[in-house]
């Protein structure tokens, strides 16, 4: 049985979402109401998936995503948001999280969970920009998230940030879109609708 934690500052949303998850037999191990609690819950339970809202007071979703990714680069994180522009936001994309937009659709939730658990094992690549201490010049290159994290932590590095996702990751979406079109021809449009939202 798939396990998860659900993080949202709105307790009503947490309750509704947990009900929907139990309908599709997902075990909710714990709930949290801010990013800091989410990190603690992740440390305690190591769930298969983290469902998390982005906009929360004090410690928001961005804080928790970064901390959880630092703890476990393979963590499966699904951003649950009411922001209609969330798919276009470079931040969720850059950290390889999946996005579910409110209001919830049970089929979408099921699909995202499946994608999370059967997703491509190949690590996502990121274009990064970094700068050495005492230098004005910046360098850029393509690395995995783990490598980005290693580089960022070095004493010699002044600044290191993700610029955007790479062509390979876009190509991955394009490949999925090809498969989705084939499914749409057979009257299954759920994949193509989902991908249309993801590809920006």
């Amino acid at each position, binding site marked *: 049985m798939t396990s998860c934690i659900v993080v949202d500052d709105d307790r009503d949303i947490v309750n509704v979402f947990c009900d929907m998850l139990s309908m599709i037999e997902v075990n909710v191990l714990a709930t949290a109401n801010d990013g800091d609690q989410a990190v603690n819950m992740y440390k305690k339970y190591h769930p298969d998936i983290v469902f998390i809202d982005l906009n929360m007071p004090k410690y928001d979703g961005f804080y928790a995503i970064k901390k959880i990714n630092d703890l476990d680069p393979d963590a499966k994180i699904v951003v649950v948001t009411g922001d209609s522009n969330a798919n276009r936001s470079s931040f969720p994309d850059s950290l390889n999280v999946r996005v579910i937009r409110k209001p919830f659709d049970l089929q979408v939730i099921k699909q995202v969970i499946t994608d999370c658990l059967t997703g491509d094992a190949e690590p996502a690549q990121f274009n*990064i920009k*970094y700068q*050495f201490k005492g230098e004005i010049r910046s*360098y850029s*290159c*393509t*690395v*995995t998230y783990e*490598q*980005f994290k*290693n*580089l960022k*932590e*070095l*004493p*010699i590095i002044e600044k290191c940030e993700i610029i955007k996702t790479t062509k390979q990751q876009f190509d991955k979406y394009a490949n999925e879109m090809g498969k989705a079109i084939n499914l749409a021809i057979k009257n299954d449009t759920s994949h193509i609708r989902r991908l249309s939202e993801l590809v920006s």
Partner: protein
Amino acid sequence: MNVMTGVTQLLAKSLEKTMLNNLGETTIRKIQDRLFERYGMSITQSMEEFEKLDSVLREFFGAGAEGLERKFLDSLCSIKSKKDQSQTRFTILEPSIGQSILKAYSDDEASKILNASIGESWTILEMLEKLQIPQTSGYRKVNSLIEDGLLIKDGHMISASGRKTDKYKSLFDNVEIDIKNNKVIVNVQFTQNVIDQSPILQTVYGI
């Protein structure tokens, strides 16, 4: 031992120190562990086979390893311009390396030995005879130059008695020592053979 040892010997100690200072102890330990796991070697040993250290650094930092390696080596000896790149002329920036070169060239006999062995390899005895340097002090100076990596092994000769004797030549094709604003600047050109067989220079500068 081959010609690679010369340039490695010249740079390795300072390069390892620079890596430790810039990567921090925790990361260095992880790199050390991974090097040992994959190749059974220490960081010091990996200087001789730099491509192995490079592959471990790439595991940790991806393409960012290129920038790091360049940064480390640039702090020891850097190529200042495109002209210098085409002439493979390096400016020595690491004081301890610069000092060992200066020390050698400020000694009359050591300087003669280095100049005579540019582009041509000799046995130690041949060098000393040709330059009329007494054997006692001559052997000491040659050994010191070999230890500093300034003289490198380059083949051998077989004597009439069948005894194999190593031949040596200078690590450099050219050395320029300049003083600008009270600062001593040492520019060197490595021999093409040294560059061709140096994984450090080839990996980092692609020359």
